[in-house]
């Protein structure tokens, strides 16, 4: 085995922006998380974070279910998983999302904003970038999330 094979493996899958695809997306990243050596709780965390991110893309970037695409790439390394989700919908500015309400009484509780909060709490690194489209192509959004096995940097 060459050193590059021992180092890492990249897997990619493309889904249409449909909520029914969330099952497949969770299985895809769950398998990658397992193959990165992550523990059961960490695998669930990855699946939850990616579910939230994908739901946000469908709901907000694409404004609802459509035939637009979500491209998911997993970089599997021993003890760490890097996931990128790419969409070419509306730009998302995470700084405009207020922190979720975690403490109000039931009457006052506003359940919004939990998706982004979960992503940040569950993953070790969450980054949003925009790739400008060339020519007539639309700008695209790249979300990068990293999960490291507990005890690794």
């Amino acid at each position: 085995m060459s050193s590059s094979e021992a180092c890492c493996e990249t897997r990619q899958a493309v889904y249409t922006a449909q909520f029914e695809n969330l099952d497949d997306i969770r299985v895809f990243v769950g398998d990658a998380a397992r193959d990165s050596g992550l523990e059961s709780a960490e695998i669930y965390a990855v699946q939850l974070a990616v579910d939230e991110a994908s739901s946000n893309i469908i709901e907000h970037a694409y404004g609802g279910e459509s035939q637009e695409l979500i491209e998911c790439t997993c970089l599997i390394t021993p003890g760490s998983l890097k996931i990128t989700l790419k969409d070419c919908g509306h730009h998302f500015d995470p700084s405009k999302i207020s922190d979720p309400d975690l403490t109000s009484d039931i009457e006052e509780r506003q359940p919004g904003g939990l998706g982004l909060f979960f992503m940040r709490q569950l993953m070790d690194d969450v980054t949003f970038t925009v790739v400008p489209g060339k020519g007539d192509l639309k700008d695209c959004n790249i979300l990068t999330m990293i999960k490291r096995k507990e005890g690794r940097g």
Partner: protein
Amino acid sequence: MDTTLTQFKHCDLIKVTGRIDSATAPKFAEALDSVMNDGRYKIVLDLENVEFMSSAGLRVLISAQKVCKRYNRGEVVLALVPQRVYEAMDLAGFVPLFKFFEDVTGAVGSF
């Protein structure tokens, strides 16, 4: 995701099976709405066989709890919540908003 409804004299029990995400949360909400639209606001949710719950499912829970607790007419209580689901609820600050039971009998008996 599937739900099974059992009506008791003092409360309704909804057993939920499968995954609650953005695709299935509307169906989960319908199951709760159909009970609440009957004027029944004392609800036990048996979540033992829920494999996954995203914030879409949590939003349904909070909406139902708001409706049921209004005018002190009832409450949604949770039984057999799987560890991963509980951890997500804890992260979201939901734990103080619900009663948790380790068995269905105790949950039903609480009403």
